[in-house]
């Protein structure tokens, strides 16, 4: 089973580069850094560029620390994207298909070359109001990209692992889609 194969022992770390395409912005917002799963429900999203910022997600709470600013924390309930991120990430890295199925309706597509796409649709209505779908593109045992499609049309595309270094200076949805497909 594919989802089981994606599992890693904690702590698992991976580099990421994220491009956010938002209606309020003319061009995408790009940040990069490292995602770490420390076991359990604890995720750390450490941004190193263009600024330093650490977001730690644990016990249903998000604690955000930014360079030169104080700590800020808020409930996970208020940031549905994060909740989705935790649910999908922890389930994937923990190799826990049951948890994944509990939170999402899952559609899977694969081809002969070993490339695959998982599409996760949140089951919880309130989450679905903000996050429409999550799409994970991968090759073999490796997840390469994660697409978070928000309900208002905004989308965040994360390049994971070795692919993170290949984030173009001026990404477009098309160029990123091509990267994810392994072109």
């Amino acid at each position, binding site marked *: 089973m594919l989802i089981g194969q994606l599992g890693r022992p904690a702590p698992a770390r991976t580099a990421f580069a*994220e491009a*956010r395409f*938002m*209606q*309020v*912005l*003319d*061009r*995408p*917002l790009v*940040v990069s850094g490292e995602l770490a799963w420390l076991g359990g429900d604890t995720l750390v*999203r450490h*941004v190193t560029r263009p*600024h330093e*910022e650490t*977001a730690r*997600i644990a*016990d*249903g*709470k*998000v604690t*955000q620390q*930014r360079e030169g600013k104080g700590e*800020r924390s*808020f*409930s*996970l*309930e*208020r*940031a*549905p*994207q*994060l909740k989705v*991120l935790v649910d999908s990430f922890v389930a994937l890295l923990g190799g826990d298909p049951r948890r994944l199925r509990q939170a999402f309706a899952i559609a899977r597509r694969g081809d002969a070359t070993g490339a695959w796409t998982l599409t996760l649709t949140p089951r919880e209505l309130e989450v679905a109001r*903000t996050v429409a779908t999550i799409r994970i593109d991968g090759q073999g045992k490796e997840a390469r990209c994660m697409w978070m499609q*928000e309900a*208002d049309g*905004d989308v965040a595309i994360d390049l994971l692992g070795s692919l993170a270094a290949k984030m173009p200076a001026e990404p477009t949805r098309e160029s990123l889609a091509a990267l994810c497909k392994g072109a």
Partner: protein
Amino acid sequence: MPLRARVALLAGWLLVLALLGLWVTKHLQVGSDLRSFMPAPTTPDQRLLMEQVGEGPGSRLLLLAISGRDEATLAKLSQALAGKLKADPRYAQVLNGSFDLTALDPKLLPYRYLLSPTLDSHALDATFLADELQQRLEDLGSPAASLFKGLLPRDPTLEVLKLAQRWAPARSPQIRDGVWFSPQGEALLLVQTLAPGFDPDAQQEAIAGIEQTLHALPGGRDAELVVSGPGYFSVVASTQTREQADWIGRISTIGFIALLLLAYRSIGSLLLAALPVASGALAGIAALTVIYPQVHGITLAFGFTLLGVAQEYPIRVLSHRRAGEDAVASVRDLWPLLLTAIASACIAYLAFYASGVNGLKQLAVFTIVGLLAAGFSTRYLLPYLLPVRVRDVAALPWLKRLRTAVDALPRPRWVPWAVAVLIVALLALGRGPFWQNDLAALTPLPTDLLLRDARLREALGAPDVRYLLVLEAATPEAVLALSEKLEPKVDALVAGKAVDAIELPSRYLPSAATQRARQQKLPDRATLEQALAQATDGLPFRRDLFAPFVADVETARSLPPLTPQAFAASPLGQRLAAMLVERDGHWVGLGTVSGVHDAAALATLAQGSGGTVRVLDLKGAAESLVIAYRTRILQALLVATLLLVLTISLALRSLRRAWHVLAPMTLATFLVLAVERVAGVQVSLFHLVALILAGGLGLHYALFFERDTGDAAEQRRTLHATLVCVLSALLVFGMLAWATIPVLRAIGLTVSLGVAFHFCLSILMAPHAQAGHAAEE
């Protein structure tokens, strides 16, 4: 009297009672505001206290704790409940810890630039905007993006969030799953009702509304809701008092009927003897209904209890019936003494009227009218209906033996002096304060409720009910200005850990002067657009994204400053309205204080203000109120005593005989005080009221024992009547002494002790018993 006439008289009497009853049920308005049972305020602090107790922001606050489900469900319930209650007009404010972006009315949104302190230290220029927009960009790249995305076009400097933070309670509980949780794992909410705190009926409706809403939510059926706060307490107090009074009343009635049946062996006499008291009760209520627009529920409950004295009148008549003698003749013999007893009791109850407390005044009207009606119907109606043939109690063998035994008791002349010495010794022995000055001790609340309240209050950081900051000025605007001037001092106190938090009115609404000063700093459209263009240079924000922001600033430039009246329409304005009240043509601002660690430091806030700022210790004000109230009752008592001495001396036409009536009564009263003091009871107002009642009963005993008829049979009848009276009083008030409510218990215990002492002392100090006994033998 011929049978037909008797039947007609009875029918007429019953008809009048029925009509009176019908009229009363149609017109009687029963009120439940507990404040009418508290002393009337005289000083400004006391008046403020009473207003606060009833309608102040503190008193309308309900503390809620939801438990019984898992944490995630509780958090959802908390959110859903808050959402529903906010839409309900019965609740002024609902807080559950979640960020409330809707706290500011959408129509008032442009006002955020006048309400937020941002413009005091910054200008909306290119430098400031560039810094803010850079931060927003970082926010958009962060996990919190969805929190800010919607706000961005209209509010890039996040003034709404700054206001929400400013308006959030200063000391908040732990937040889990986005809402407040107690250390015990209950979801916590604060709800402010529109209904005043001390109107139990309105509060009950508000609390029931919360319960129904919660249990109707999905998953809310099995959730447990704990409510606390002054409003809840008033509901508990009024239902408990009502329930216990009903319960005790029922049992006492049954016992009373059994006692009378045993004493007189005649159902007919018993039923007829009930008529004077029924007449008294109905006449009392009718008088109240005519005089007062609303009659307090407690007045009625206590009034019926106090009217128990009136049951003595028919009992005296029944016990003093002689074999073969017409009842009318018996009553005529008895009447002068009975009249003296009625008049004295009325005078004693008059002291209630002089107390100045509305509820006690009503009680006085009810009991005096009731006593008069019962007394006169006993004299002029009852005797014509009583059966002609009766059993003369004087012939009862056990009564003869008892009377002999009572008469054989040694009656040394030193008894009064020994009792007096005992009283002085007991009073001197007693430890601790003599008087109970704490108003809370009069609030009939079980301790576990108070402990639970303290726990929730601590967890929620809800303001103390004890201290209040009072700001006085001519206009609301001047109060707000005064409040702003105080803010740095308050911040210093909080930083110095003298108090945890002080909530000032200016926290919700700055003065018009401050709003205008901020308004002056707002740039015009062209300047702002230019600054914005400069600030967004190099940033990826869409062009024209901030048009709503520019429009809002433009609107804010020409807004009239927000007034408390205009603000009142929004949910937060309600909060402000409770902190800003008009009184006697000037305005008072109320600051709530949480977690006082250093009362002396808090008191320094008032220094140098020339009396415009005061720190009000509600407990102190309450205690001064109680002391003033007690002084008034004591003065009234003194007057009542003088009147009593006068009445009795005139009625008996002898100072010496008056002494024989008044001395046992006085000694017994002080003996009750002394015994309670040694037992560690602190004397409250209710004890005083109970002492007055016991004194009234004791007066009857002494009056009848003092009566020298020179007839041994008549003395036996007196003993019989007094025994029935004492037993019935002990039955009724002994039952009250079992009540769990401190007030009822205080009354029950004091009256029971009093009745016992009055009885014993009036027997021991009766002057002529031996002479009467000798004559018989």
